[in-house]
C-alpha cells in the first residue's frame, strides 16, 4: 500500500488504426492514467469508446502510436515483440471472457502454461500450481480436461492460471460475460478476495453490478477518459 510508484502509468497514450489507405481511426486520443499497487479498477464504456484498445495496450498485446506506458516502472511502449511477450508472461495475468483454456491440456497443465514460456522448471513449481488449483476450489480435478468442466469451473482455472506467474496486475476482460449470475458472482468474489490479498486488478466490463465491486470505475468515451467514479469506501475500508 505504501509504494509510491504506480504499477501502471499512461502518459498521453494515442492509438491510431489505418482503415484502408486514407481513413485513420483514432481509437485513443491522449489518455493519461495511473493505477497504484493493490488497486481494483473497472473500465467501462460503450462500444467504440476505445475500451478494447485500452485493454490491448494495458495487456501489452499492442503498442501505442505515441505516448508512454510504464508497467512496473519500465517503459513498454516501444518494446520489441519478444520483450513484450516476456512482459506479458511475467507481469500480467489474463482472464478472458471465454475462459480460453487450452483444450488438449489438463487443469494442472493449463495452470502451468505461463510458466512454460518463461523456461521455468515445471517440476519445481508443481506444488505451487496444485496450491493454486486448491485456492480456486479445483484441487480434486487436476487431471480433468476443460470440456469436462462447467463454465464457472473453467473460469476459475483461468483465475488460477493468471496467478501462477505472480503478476503485477490481473487483467480481466468481461470475466463474467459467459457465466450465469450465480457462478459469475462466485468468480467475482474470488477476484475480490485476490484484491484484498493485495493483487492489483484491472477489469473491463459493461455490467454496472460488476463495476460496482471495483474501487475506481473509469468511464471511457470517444478515446478519452470521460469521468472517474470512486466507489463507496466499504471495500476500501476492508483493505485499509
Amino acid at each position, binding site marked *: 500500500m505504501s509504494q509510491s510508484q504506480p504499477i501502471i502509468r499512461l502518459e498521453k497514450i494515442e492509438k491510431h488504426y489505418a482503415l484502408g489507405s486514407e481513413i485513420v481511426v483514432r481509437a485513443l486520443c491522449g489518455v493519461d492514467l495511473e493505477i497504484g499497487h493493490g488497486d481494483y479498477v473497472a473500465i467501462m464504456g460503450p462500444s467504440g469508446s476505445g475500451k478494447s484498445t485500452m485493454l*490491448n495496450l494495458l*495487456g501489452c*498485446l*499492442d503498442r501505442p502510436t505515441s505516448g508512454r506506458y510504464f508497467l512496473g516502472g519500465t517503459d513498454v511502449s516501444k518494446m520489441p*515483440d*519478444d520483450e513484450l*511477450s*516476456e512482459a*506479458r*508472461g*511475467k507481469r500480467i495475468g*489474463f482472464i*478472458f471472457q471465454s475462459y*480460453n483454456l*487450452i*483444450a*488438449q*491440456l489438463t487443469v494442472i*497443465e493449463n495452470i502451468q*502454461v*505461463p510458466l*512454460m*514460456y*518463461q*523456461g521455468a*522448471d*515445471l517440476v519445481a513449481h508443481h506444488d505451487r500450481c496444485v496450491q493454486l488449483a486448491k485456492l480456486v476450489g479445483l484441487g480434486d480435478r487436476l487431471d480433468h480436461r476443460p470440456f469436462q468442466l462447467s463454465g464457472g469451473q473453467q473460469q476459475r482455472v483461468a483465475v488460477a*492460471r493468471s496467478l501462477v*506467474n505472480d503478476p503485477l496486475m490481473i487483467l480481466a476482460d468481461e470475466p463474467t460475460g459467459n457465466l450465469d449470475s450465480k457462478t459469475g458472482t462466485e468468480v467475482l468474489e474470488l477476484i475480490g478476495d485476490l484484491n484484498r490479498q493485495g493483487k492489483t486488478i484491472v477489469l473491463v466490463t459493461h455490467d454496472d453490478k460488476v463495476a460496482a465491486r471495483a474501487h475506481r470505475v473509469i468511464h471511457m468515451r470517444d478515446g478519452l477518459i470521460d469521468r472517474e467514479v470512486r466507489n463507496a469506501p466499504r471495500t476500501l475500508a476492508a483493505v485499509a
Partner: protein
Amino acid sequence: MKIFTSSLTTTMRLGLKSLMLHKLRSALTMLGIIFGVCSVIAMLAIGEGASYEAQQAIQKLGRDNIILRSVKPPDEAKQAGSGRSSSVEYGLTYNDGARIQSTIPGVERVLPVRIIRETVRFSDRAASCQVIGTLPFYTEIVNLDLVRGRFLSETDEMNQNNVCVISASLASKLFPYQDPLEQSVKIDAFYYRVIGLAREKDTAEQRPQSGQMEGEPLDNNIYICLSTVRSRFGETIIRRSAGGFEVERVQLHQITVKMKGLEAVESGDNEIKALLARFHKQNDYEAIVPLQLLRQAEQTKYIFNIVLGSIAAISLIVGGIGIMNIMLATVTERTREIGVRRALGAKRRDITLQFLVETVILSVGGGLIGVMLGVVAPMMVSQLTTMKTIVTPLSVLLAFGISGLVGIIFGLYPAKAAARLDPIEALRHE
C-alpha cells in the same frame, strides 16, 4: 541448455498430446510418409539383392579372366536345320590359344577346354555327363574343390592316361554303394580310372555345347586330360537325329585366358578380339569379359538407384505436401489457442517450435513405421519369391533422415504462419 532441453521435451510431449487429439487425422497424414519410406527401403533392398546376385555370379567367372567360347555361326545353323544331314566346322582352335599365349602381353595362362556330351556307365548304371577335356592347371583358374583324390597331372597329360576326375554329384549317381575312387567308368568305348572327386563351387555357370547359349549345369562333369580326349574322341562329333545326322568339327569349345591383373584385362580384351578377328572369317566365337560385365552391372545399379531415388523423392515430397496441408488447416483451426499462448507469454519462436515439433513428430513417426514396414516387406518378398533382398543400414538411415528433413522443410511454413499471427486478431478468432 538444460532448461532448453527440458522445455523441448515438454514441447514434444505437448505436441504429441495435440496430435493424439485427432488420432485418425494424424494417422492419415502419416500415411504418405509411411509409404514413401517403406517403398524406398523395400525397393533399394530388392535392387541391392538383385545386383548382389549378379555380381556374385560374375565374380565366380573370375575378374582376371577373359572367356572365349565357340559359337555355331547362325547362318550355318539354319542350313543344318533345313538339310537332312550337314557338316559344320567352326570354333576356336588350338592355334588360337597358342597365338594368344605368344602375342598378347599380360597373359598369364591360356586354358583350352573341350566339352563333349556323353553317357557314362558303371556296371549297369548310366548317366548323361559332360566330358571336359582340359589341362592340369584347370583348378587354378576355375573354382573347383577337390573333395578326394587328386586332379589330373602333367604325367597324365603327357601319357594320355585313361584317368578321370568326376563331379561328386555324378559320383553319387553312379556309385550309390561303392567307393568311386579307383573304379573304372566307361565312356563311349573306353574305360577311365577315377582318381578324384570334385565339387563345383558355381553350378550357376553353364557351358555352351555345340553353339547353344545355355549348357548343362556344371555338376555332372567328368574331367579328362585334353590329350586323352583328343585321341579318344577326335574332333568330329556326329549327332544322329531322326532321319539324318549332323557332323560338327570343333577343336576347342572354350579358351579361358587368365590375365595378369585388371589392367591387363582392359588392354588384352580388345587385342584378343582383334587377333581372333584376323583368323576367323565367320563369327563363330564369343568373348565374355567378367570385368566388363561387373562394370555394366555396377552401371545398371547406379541408374537403378537414380530412378529409385527419384521415385522416392517424389513420394516423400507428396507425403510432405500432405503434412503441410494438414498443418496449415490445423493452424487455422487453432488460431485462438495460438492467441492465448501468445497472451500468456509465448514468443513467436515458441509458437514456431511448437508447430514444427508437431510436424516433425508426424513425419518422423511416419518414418519409423515406414522403416519397420520397409524392413518387413523385403523379407516377405524373399519368402514369396526366389528373389534375394538385402536391406542395407544406409538405406534405412537415408529414408529415415529424409523423412525427418521433409518434416522440417514442410513444417516450417505452417509454423511460421502460426507465429506471424497477431495475438489480438488470434484471440478474437472464433
